[in-house]
């Protein structure tokens, strides 16, 4: 499954890139699975996802919980809790 992965704020800084196109294994079926799989990709990814419990996600630009399925999703973003306003 091909996915566009985006990172923002300190997640982006820790991973080292803002966006990557990845071919994700078929057994990665949820947002939580994806975060766990990404953490195995490099030391930087592991560092970024070390605080997985505080990282939020969005599927195709809609907020999504760790249990959200990845079927028919093309873009997944990971970021810290928002701090605008």
């Amino acid at each position, binding site marked *: 499954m091909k996915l566009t992965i985006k990172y923002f*704020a300190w997640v982006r800084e820790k991973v080292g890139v803002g966006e990557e196109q990845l071919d994700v294994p078929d057994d990665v079926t949820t947002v939580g699975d994806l975060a766990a799989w990404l953490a195995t990709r490099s030391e930087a990814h592991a560092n970024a996802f070390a605080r997985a419990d505080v990282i939020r996600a969005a599927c195709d*630009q*809609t*907020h999504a919980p760790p249990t959200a399925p990845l079927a028919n999703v093309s873009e997944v973003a990971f970021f810290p809790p*928002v*701090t605008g*306003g």
Partner: protein
Amino acid sequence: MTVRVQNEDFDVNAEIDALRGLSDEIGAIVTFTGTVRGRANGESLSAMTLEHYPGMTERELARVEAMALERWPLQGTTIIHRIGELEPGANIVLVVTASRHRQAAFDAAAFLMDYLKTSATFWKKEAAADGSGSWVDARESDDEALARWADPPA
């Protein structure tokens, strides 16, 4: 119904006038302006940088605006949020609500800000006077502020 994400500053009076002209039934216009603090946790700040998620931010702001329009009889709303590097004292965010009477305008403005702070995809990074930078942590009090909107208005 206006949602804008922009680098440049906004003119509060111009935005009020833009809403005022929408309907002759408007009797109340409320504005909220959020600004950059020059001091946080006792430390002086030299600047604040606002990052966002282009595309999703605009969608979230439009979604929150639509929720407000469902709950209150509003003649118009405007949400403007700045991004990029901002100096202490600078404007960050503007919410304007227009209604026939004040209560709907007050409540809708508070609702929009509470939802914006917990769901719109912006992140603040503070630069201290010594040049060090740190991402602002989300506040639990923002989630608590949101909880008061769980029940529909009486």
